[in-house]
């Protein structure tokens, strides 16, 4: 079984090495301060007890008040997993340091998060739109982008009783 290192444990480890680098920790993940991210990631990759050499998944979440970038890390040699996060509080211009210098595998995943969520990864070698075309207006995965009629569950509301309101902008 893969050993899952809880957010609180990994936060403790990081805090020992880099005091003040952890912003908060919940059982699922530890949140890093953005300006310390690169050194923390290099430590997570190279530490002999952690060896997180494989970036499983990188994605961004719109938490309404702020954006969050989530990194799921795997150590293939030690068979363990953990997750760290970093916050981007500025909704107008969310910026997070890129981790491509630590894991090259972040390259396409950061481009995807930029394309769909509009997070700017500072230091990314080639930050361009991935699935959408250049000049596309807006960031589709943000919660404020095209909310359907009837709030969050329009499909549920419209099915049998079929509400009488005309559909919004999405046909």
């Amino acid at each position, binding site marked *: *079984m893969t050993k899952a290192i809880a957010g609180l444990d990994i936060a403790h480890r990081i805090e020992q090495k880099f005091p003040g680098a952890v912003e908060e920790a919940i059982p699922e993940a530890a949140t890093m301060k953005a300006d310390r991210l690169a050194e923390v990631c290099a430590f997570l990759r190279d530490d002999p007890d952690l060896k997180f050499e494989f970036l499983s998944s990188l994605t961004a*979440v719109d938490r309404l008040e702020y954006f969050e970038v*989530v990194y799921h890390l795997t150590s293939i040699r030690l068979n363990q997993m953990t997750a760290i996060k970093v916050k981007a509080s500025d909704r107008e211009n969310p910026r997070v340091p890129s981790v491509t210098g630590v*894991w090259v595998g972040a390259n396409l995943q950061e481009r995807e998060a930029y394309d769909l969520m509009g997070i700017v990864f500072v230091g990314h070698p080639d930050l361009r739109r991935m699935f959408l075309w250049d000049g596309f207006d807006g960031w589709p995965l943000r919660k404020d982008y095209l909310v*359907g009629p009837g709030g*969050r569950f329009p499909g549920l509301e419209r099915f049998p009783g079929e509400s009488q309101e005309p559909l919004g902008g999405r046909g």
Partner: protein
Amino acid sequence: MTVQTEPFVVNLGPQHPSTHGVFRLRLTLDGERIIDADMVMGYLHRSMEKLAEERTYTQNIPFTDRTDYLAAMTGNLAYVIAVEQLCGIEPPDRAQWLRTIMCELQRIASHCMAVGIFANDCGAWQTPVMHMLRDREKVLDLFEMACGARLTLNYMRIGGVSRDVPPEFMPTARKLIKDLPKKLDEYEDLLLENEIIVERSRGIGVLTPEQAMAHSVSGPMLRASGVAWDIRKADPYAAYDKVDFDIAVGVHGDVYDRFVVRLAEMRESVKILEQALELIPEGPVHAQLPTATVQPIDQPVAPLAIRPPVGEAYGRIESPRGELGFYLISDGSPAPFRFHIRSPSYINLTPLKLMSVGGTVADAIVILGSVDIIVGEVDR
């Protein structure tokens, strides 16, 4: 004597048989050598992650068929495992074994396609792929028996599978498993020493183990580079901890090794199926969902909906293409707050430029073939 050449651009795709769908590779050439490779994708982008945020957890299962449409079973399973982690549901034994059986059948079907189409890319035009499609059809017949569909299966459910298999399923599956090793011998005779394949693929697109891990490459591609990492072994799900099998590993990390690893994995799948068809117990195929997670929602349409507790989960499995993960965030409502697919096809493309630069256009085609992308999963 030196020849002065000007770099020029060749578009491979989006409508090209060797790009396996609508995927475009923009190659910059200097003479015959590739000096830059730029991927252009999104032709099949349907924004599933956004759509999923407006549907209930159960309504989202069919989306997972349509990401990796050559391996719908594994797509289903990865998603329901993530939801089960969120809710803390444990499916009954028979459901776990049925999941194992279906996923291994799916792996055989998917690798048949991968290996056959790869032979096509190399220039062994159509004959090998027809052999492979013949056997894939038999697996699809079994799926049709189990759930009525052949491609977009929608078979897994949160807490189990949609229905038990009919009585004729097990004998048919046993017969298929008995015949398959002979077919695999046939493929190996036909392809392993085949000059068309060997000459085109040996020493091409090499990834060292360190490069493969750093690029987040997973699945047969990672194992071809010599890293024995398989989530079925490392973090067993379904009933994989109760069966005995080996991890197929390559040595050189080149295109040829990826092809050999896929052939070897089909043999291992047969081995798993032989055991699973013997060991599968009788019993229910669906867990009783805890009442706390199934609550009436206020709309008249779906009287009961699964409402996982507030939290997040990352469920992952070994799909035929690599680590397929679903990252779900629940805010306690009937629809996910965030639904992210960690798609192996997409992430395995990360080292494509590294592998292609310095080679020729012909190399780029077999390299892309060896990644075994499914554009539905790349673009989502």
